[in-house]
């Protein structure tokens, strides 16, 4: 997957995890927490969705990398580079 595809995938996951949030104005550099009402249960869900969909495992000590869209995409890029988008 390319970084752009990973970004789309994260957006899709967010729309499942937080269906009532308006994601259209999401700023990549800003923290998710500042823009969306996500709690720890929702973050766990993002991690679980990544595992469910792509077998990507994110260890708990790496959760800090999921703070914003930009940091999430750059963290996931090496892990998801070889995944073919279906």
């Amino acid at each position, binding site marked *: 997957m390319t970084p752009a595809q990973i970004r789309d995938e994260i957006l899709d996951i967010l729309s499942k995890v937080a269906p009532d949030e308006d994601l259209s104005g999401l700023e990549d550099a800003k923290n998710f927490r500042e823009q969306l009402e996500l*709690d720890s249960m929702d973050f766990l*869900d993002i991690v679980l969705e990544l595992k469910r969909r792509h077998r990507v495992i994110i260890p708990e000590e790496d959760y800090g990398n999921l703070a914003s869209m930009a940091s999430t995409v750059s963290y996931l890029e090496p892990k998801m580079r070889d995944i073919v988008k279906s």
Partner: protein
Amino acid sequence: MEEFDTIIIGAGMSGLAAGIRLAYFDQKVCILERHYTIGGLNSFYRLNHRDYDVGLHAVTNFVGKGAKKGPIAKLLRQLRFSWDDFQLRPQLGSAVVFPDVELNFNNDIELLKAEIAAKFPTQRDRFEILLKQLVDYDDLNDEMFGLSSRKILQEIFTEPLLIEMLLCPLMWYGNARENDMDFGQFCIMFRSIYLEGFGRPFKGVRLILKHLVRKYRALGGQLKLRSGVAKIITDGEHAVGVELDNGTQLKAKRILSSAGAVETMRLCEDTSESKVVQAGQLTFIESISVLDCQPKEIGFDKTIVFYNDSPQFHWTRPQTELCDARTGVICSPNNYLYDATEGELQDGIIRLTTIADYNRWAGLDENSYRREKLRWYDLSVASAVRFMPDFRRRVIETDVFTPKTIRRFTHHDNGAVYGAPKKQLDGRTHLKNLFLCGTDQGFVGIVGAIVSGISIANMHCLRTELS
């Protein structure tokens, strides 16, 4: 032998919710239920061509469509439901009624504030202080959870009657402890009843259960009804699997049990090691009266009335008789704001809940049991009509169920409705891979049980798989 990632004991609200979470994230899950139907303490049945709900007065924690906060928003998100699936309609309005004083409340806290200002003018600012002291769901820790609510309330309020009146609905809808209430539970119930409020789907609890079980099955979850767990097989430190009432054995990497704390310990082969936990004592009789008219037509437009016939509210097991009718809950499922397309419920219904003593009911022989059911129907209705219009001439059909019925269908010791007074908030047991969910883990009620199933599945079955 068939092997599962997770076996769940009980197809009540908590078991089904946990099952959905696990099946959604690709676990091989099996829910085992002893009864021939789902729902547990909040199921439904059919009698003389009419549909009845076992428990549903109200879904607590009501929020409108689009809400992002609160337990209902959270559970809808976690289970991948939309708000429209549950079709919750708001209450018309409820009341706490004590001799000479009535406090009305609805899904907007401003009404309760105004009622307190009008009827207890000296306590108005004190109520604001209480609102500030409430602890949020996520911030509750074990230490503050067990504090005495009565003590905290006595420090804030100077009118004892107001304390009793505020406690009455909260204890009725979710307190497993006699006389007093854990402060953590007080905060949870305060939020769910006074700050958020009541709602109900037009079709009652079956709509919620239907959605839960459909989603669970669609995700590949297995549900085995008439499959009571007779024994949890252990190797000393871990649960290895279960043995069913019919002798079948199933293996599992881990087990979640909604059967209750004491009940689950008893299932374990190695029960001698278990801590002694006390089963709950608080249970009810519930009477349902079908009227030949809508309750509004006889002047009753309240959704729920919590009544008590003296200034002191007694929340204990009846000391001398089968029931204690000094206090009770009156609910009319008709009195919700249903959509125009839904119309009115066909029958007028008055439901009445009265505190009962399991042991006395269980000790009756067949004939006395039948007679006492009739007698306590009359006594509890006679008590309730002191606080609402007398509906007795309009009754065309009745049903009553007792602690014995509750015990028979849910297998909870004493027919306890809110489980053991001491909760196991982290869900852990003496076995490393056996966890409690539902009533005895901590959260009660429909919403509470669903949230409990989700949290325990997340904490012990999903998060652990990530490392």
